Each structure stands twice: as C-alpha cells, then as structure tokens.
C-alpha cells in the first residue's frame, strides 16, 4: 500500500509539522507559562504586568496549533484520525481550556474579574497538562488496527502521562518565568520571576528523572531500544543537560536573556530527543511517516499553495509581530505599538 521510504514531499510536510509543533510549544508555551504563574500571585499589579507582557502575542501563538492541525489532516490524515480519536478527552479539554483562556483574557477587564482570572489560570494549567499527558501516552505507544485507533477512551490515563503532564505544566511555567525576566520592564516582577526560576528548574529536572524511571518501569519497549540504532541521538539529552545548567547560571548571575533562551534550548533538545526515538513512527509504534502520508496528488496540491506561499507568510507575520514588540515591554509596549499595519500607536480620544 505504501512505500517503505517516505517521499520527498512527505518529508517536507513532516518537517513543516515538526517546526510548527516546536514553534507552538515554545511560543504558546511561554504565554501558557505566564498564565500558570499568574495563579501564583494575588498582587494585582504583578498580574496586570504579566498580562501586558503577553497581550500582543498570545493569540498569534495559537495560530501554530492550527498550522499543526491543518497540515496533519491534509498531509497525514491517518495520523490526524488516530491521534484525535485516541486523545478524545484531552483534545476536548485542550479546546475548552484554550477557548476559555482566550475569552477570559479579553473579558477580565470588563467585569467579574475574579471569575475570569480563575478561568485564565485554570485554562492555562489544563492546556499545558493535557499536552504533556499526550506526550506521555505517545511514549507508551498507541494501538492502531486498520488505520483506526483501537484502544479505549481513557488509555491515555497512566502514571507516565500524568508525570509528563505535570512536567509540562512546570516546564511551561519555567519558560513563562524566563519570558517575564526577559521582557518585563517592571523590576519587581522581574525579581519575582527570577526568584522562582531555580525552584522551577529543579522541579523540571526532578520530573524528568521521575518520567525516565516511570518509562522504564512502565514500558520496556521504547526504553529498550532507546537510541539503539541512532547512538548520535544521545547528543540531544546532553544539550538539554547543558541548557539546564545555563538556566541556573543565568538566574544566579542576573543574565536576563539566559533563562528564557536556555529553556528554549531545553525544549528543542527534548523535542529532538523524542523525535529521534520515535522516528520513523508518527504514531508510536504503529504508524510510520511513509504509511501515513497522503497520496502525492494531495501533498503537491498542498505544497504549491500552502507550502510555498502561506507558510512563509505565517513565519514572516510572526517575525514582524515580535520585531514590532521587541525589547522590554515599555508602558505596555505603547512606544513601539502595533504590528506592521498599526506601526504608529494611534490613539483617538
């Protein structure tokens, strides 16, 4: 039915999806992280500074989730079908959490602030947790028969998934703390965030150790063949270790760009480690890239419009927004103001 080796177009779309997942994890990761940290203080001023630090970005960040979903459905429909069926409940929770969080973000200024603020924190925590839990469940493997998910609705609930879920909540919080240290103009908020980095980083290291042990206990299949065919893959966990050291050093020496940058490196290293372990599977350990790829007619139809035109625009848009709001957030970014079109902060009174 399908070639053993994936076609070049299939590889192109795998790469697109991989980059989009990474972009999503890092970009939405920091704003979800700020949402998680938001729950760790009751100080109204710190809270509004936190909101201000992510307000121009958070919605655009979620665009990358749409890129992942749309590309998966179009280029690897089997993966889309199996993944969403296997994670029926987590996907439901993720969607509800993201919707609630987004609405809370816009409406908290209006009324019922306490309610929306709680919604904002809860939405951030739930979204982070289910993403982590899905990664844990992927490591355990997803059973597939005839191109369809063959497990139960709650198979994803397992020790490893829960550990990974908690791990991603902590990981995003670390990323969020790094973001606040990097971007906030408010010295008090910077100190507040910087003070939490060593604890969060320690917790992340602890969770990684627990997850590794759980994975060995839980399922020998993946851990047994861990990097066996690709010993060079060990370079990624190694990079991750160095990055963790960098986070501690950056926090201690008040190098304010380090914690965020090093946490990003940690996330990239973790992603590449997992990708190396999973390859050539897209759904471990049942669906490979080659067997999941849509026919060439679909992949090329998608390539000439979306691949060549839309994706570069999305990348450019992301770049422009971040460029416009570069530097520390000054008076709510008012000095640099809106993106491309709104280059001049227009105020009509």
């Amino acid at each position, binding site marked *: 039915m399908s070639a053993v080796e994936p076609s070049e177009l299939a590889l192109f779309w795998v790469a697109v999806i991989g980059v989009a997942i990474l972009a999503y994890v890092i970009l939405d990761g920091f704003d979800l992280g700020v949402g998680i940290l938001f729950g760790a203080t009751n100080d109204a001023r710190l809270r509004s500074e936190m909101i201000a630090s992510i*307000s*121009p*970005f958070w*919605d*655009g960040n979620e*665009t990358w989730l*749409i890129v992942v979903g*749309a590309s998966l*459905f*179009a280029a690897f*429909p*089997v993966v*889309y*079908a*199996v993944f*969403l*069926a296997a994670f*029926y*409940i987590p*996907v*439901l929770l993720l*969607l*509800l959490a993201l*919707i*609630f969080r*987004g*609405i809370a973000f*816009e*409406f908290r*200024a*209006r009324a019922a602030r306490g309610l929306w603020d709680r919604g904002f924190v809860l939405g951030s925590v739930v979204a982070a947790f289910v993403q982590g839990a899905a990664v844990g469940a992927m490591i355990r493997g997803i059973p597939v028969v005839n*191109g*369809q*998910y*063959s497990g139960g*609705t709650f198979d994803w609930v397992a020790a490893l998934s829960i550990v990974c879920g908690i791990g991603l909540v902590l990981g995003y919080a670390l990323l969020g703390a790094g973001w606040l240290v990097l971007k906030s103009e408010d010295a008090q908020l910077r100190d507040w965030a910087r003070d939490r980095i060593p604890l969060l980083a320690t917790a992340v290291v602890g969770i990684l150790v627990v997850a590794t042990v759980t994975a060995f206990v839980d399922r020998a299949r993946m851990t047994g063949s861990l990097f066996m065919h690709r010993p060079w893959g060990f370079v990624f966990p190694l990079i991750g270790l160095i990055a963790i050291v960098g986070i501690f050093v950056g926090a201690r020496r008040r190098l304010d760009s380090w914690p965020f940058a090093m946490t990003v490196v940690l996330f990239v290293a973790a992603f590449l480690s997992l990708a190396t372990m999973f390859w050539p599977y897209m759904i471990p350990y049942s669906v490979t890239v080659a067997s999941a790829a849509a*026919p060439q*007619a*679909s992949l090329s*139809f*998608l390539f000439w*419009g*979306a691949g060549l035109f*839309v994706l570069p625009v*999305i990348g450019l*848009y992301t770049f422009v*927004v971040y460029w416009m709001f570069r530097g520390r957030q000054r008076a709510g*970014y*008012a000095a640099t103001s*809106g*993106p491309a*079109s*709104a*280059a*001049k*902060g*227009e*105020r*009509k*009174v």
Partner: protein
Amino acid sequence: MELDPVLLSRLQFAFVISFHIIFPAFTIGLAAWLTTLEGVRLLTGNHLYRRIFDFWLKIFALSFGMGVVSGIVMAFQFGTNWSVLAERTGSIQGPLLGYEAFTAFLLEATFFGVVLLGRDSVPAWFYFLSCCMVSLGTMLSSFWILANNSWMQVPLGHIIVDGRIVPGDWWAIITGPIMRIRWPHMLLAAFLTTGMCVAATGAWYLLRGKDVQEAGAMLRWGLGFVAVVIPVQMVFGHLTGIYVLNYQPAKFAAIEARWKTQQPASEVLIAIPDPRHERNLFALEIPRLGSFIASGNWDAREGGLDAFPPEDRPPVIIPFFAFRVMVGMGLIMVAVSWFGAFLRWRGTLESTRWFLWATFLSFPSGFIAVLAGWFTAEVGRQPWVVYGLLRTKDAVTPSLKTGDVLLSLACYVVVYSIIYAFGLYYIYRLLRDGPAQDVSDRTKMTPARPLAVAVQATKEAPQ
C-alpha cells in the same frame, strides 16, 4: 432512536456548526458592506459613511473573533468524532479544509490588520484596497468550505485506492457543477443576512429617534440591497433544487414529503409528515404542481421515497420543514424589502412606524434561512456522509463510547452557552449604543485579537 455515538456525534456536529455558521454568514456580508461603505465614502467624500463604517467595523471584529473561535472546534470534530471519515477521505477533505484555515489566517495576518488598526497609518487607496482584500478573503474562505461540502454532497474527481477515497482530478473536485451553484447561493445568503441586519439596525434607531442620519442610510442601503438581490437568490435557489433533483433524488423526495411515486405528482405546500405510516397528515396539496416544478410539464411521473430501499432514505421531517422555513424567510425578505422600496418611492419609508417595527423584527430572517438551508442540505444527505460512498454510521470513530460523546456534547453546550451569552451581549451593546463614538485604545493589539477591539469599544462607551 437510541442514543449511540453516531447520533450523539451528529448532534454535537450540528450543535457546534450551527453556532459557527451564524458568524461567517454575518462576516462575509459585513466585509462586503464595509467595502461598499468605504468605496462610497471615497467617491462622495461624505463623512456620514465613515461614521457608519467605524460602527460596523466593531461588529465585524467581534463577529470575526467569535467565528474563528467556534471554527477551530469544528475542524477538530472531523478527527475526534469522525475518524473513519478523516482517514478514508482525508486526502481530499484535508487539503480543502486546510486551505480554508490557511486562507482565514492569511486574511487575519495581513489586510484585516490594516482594516482594523491601520486607518491612520496607510494611504486612503491602500486602506480601501485592504477592505476589498478582506472581503475577497472571507469569500475565498467560504469557497473552500463549499467546495468541501459540495464534494460530500456529490463526490466527483476521486478514485478509490485500497478502500481510501483519494484525489484523482482536483479541478473536478473543486469546481464541480454543484459547486458553481451552491457557492453563489451561500454567498448571496450571507449578503442578504447582513443586508437585513443593517436595515433592521437602521429601523431600530429610527424607532428610538437615535442617530437619525446614519439610521436612514442603513435602512435605505439595507432594504435596497435586499430588494435587488433577493430575486437573484431565488434563481440560485431554484438551480440548487434542480441539482438536488438530478443528483440526490431521495433528498428531493424527502423535501417534498412524497412518500409514493406519483403520476402526475402533486405539490405538498404544508403538512405534518408521519414517517411511521409513510403519509402526510393535514396536507395542503396542489395537484400536478409537483410534476411541473420538477419536470416542467404537468403530467410527469415523479419518484417518491418508495423508489429507494429503506436503508437509503433520508429522514423526512427535518428537510421538509427546514426547506419551508428557508423559503418562508425568503418570502419575508421579499415582502419587507419590496414594500420598503414602495414606501421609499412614496417618501414615507422613515416615518411609517409599523413598517419600521416589521423591518426591525425581521433582523434574524437571514440567519434562520441560512441555518434552515444547511439543515435541509445536511440532513437530506443522510444516510450518507459522502453521498453514495460512505455512510454516516460507518464514518464515526470506532473507539467512541456513548458516554464520551455525551460528556463532550454537554461540555460544548455549557461552554458555548457562557461564551455566546457574553459575545451576543457585547454585540447587542455595540448595536444599542450606535455609531456615536470611536474610543478604542488600540495599543497592544494585533489583528489576531479582533475581540479586543470590540470589547475595548464597549468598555469605554458610556454605561
């Protein structure tokens, strides 16, 4: 009928898509309306149109945001609840729906930002161009959705390989003869929906003696537009009926509630279909008209539902009533808009209060017509999800349990209720306050946050 994952998944899909379609139907029309306003303002230099523009722009921003939020949920349904459909037809539906998502994004990332935030940063001609592009973008978005749905109604250009339905000829898939009728039908429906809303808003202000200048313009433009376009829509509606007759005769028989094949066939105007006994209660029928409508002569033989095996028959009650509701809404639009044209000719349009009330109360006619039309199309397609190729009952995710879907459906109902209550409340507030002032503080906003613009606007408006 028992509660199984198939029925519940269908209910869930119907629920989320019914909530969703309201917003795109509105924004497609609003984008065209805004473009028209901006164009007229450029031509005449009349600042009145600028005030009306700024007012409807806020409504557009809020509706666009709500449409995006509810649309994201839609896209995931295909995988979560209909994974067999996603797997079998994903290589056709995936790219079509993918392009829709990408089109919507392109729009949001580029020209929508200019329209929303960049009025003072770009030259007037570029601002107008951006309006045109946003309008074009919303239409393109609907193009992909209609291409996808039309392919599900009448699959063309595909080949079947190893049980999977894969693309053979993209041109045939995208521009089938059905698409060429259904897309304009949907576009016109969206325009009419907005036209009625604009007219109703104008009527509302006139009744309250508020913003009379703007209100008069809205009323005249809205009603005038509907009066001209509604006959065109009826032609496309008729063409849609012909495609149903030719390609989906069982759906046609269901819409007509024609249980038995007849020669000559009568036309059931209204009745209560009784599926159990396959008959119509309290039927009001016109003899021979059914033959004439379907075949153009008064004696033709017309197939009834008995011409199809029981397992291939669609339900009757929903398509039958939904179709009549849609037509009824169209007739309301004809009555209101044409009578409005008459009053305008008499010079009493803005002073005839009972007519202003009638116009105001007919604001939901377009929305109801759009929903009823889609109910007719989608329920009438049953028992197929892809007509003739894949049955709905075979397309559902095999691992789903009844409790799973019950849970997700309940969650969506609760969350949508809360969110839509707030969203509709804000739209109501914006509409109520009228085109008085533009006071938003738009720093920290990007085009990815249309809700923010609208919420800001209500925040600072006087309580």
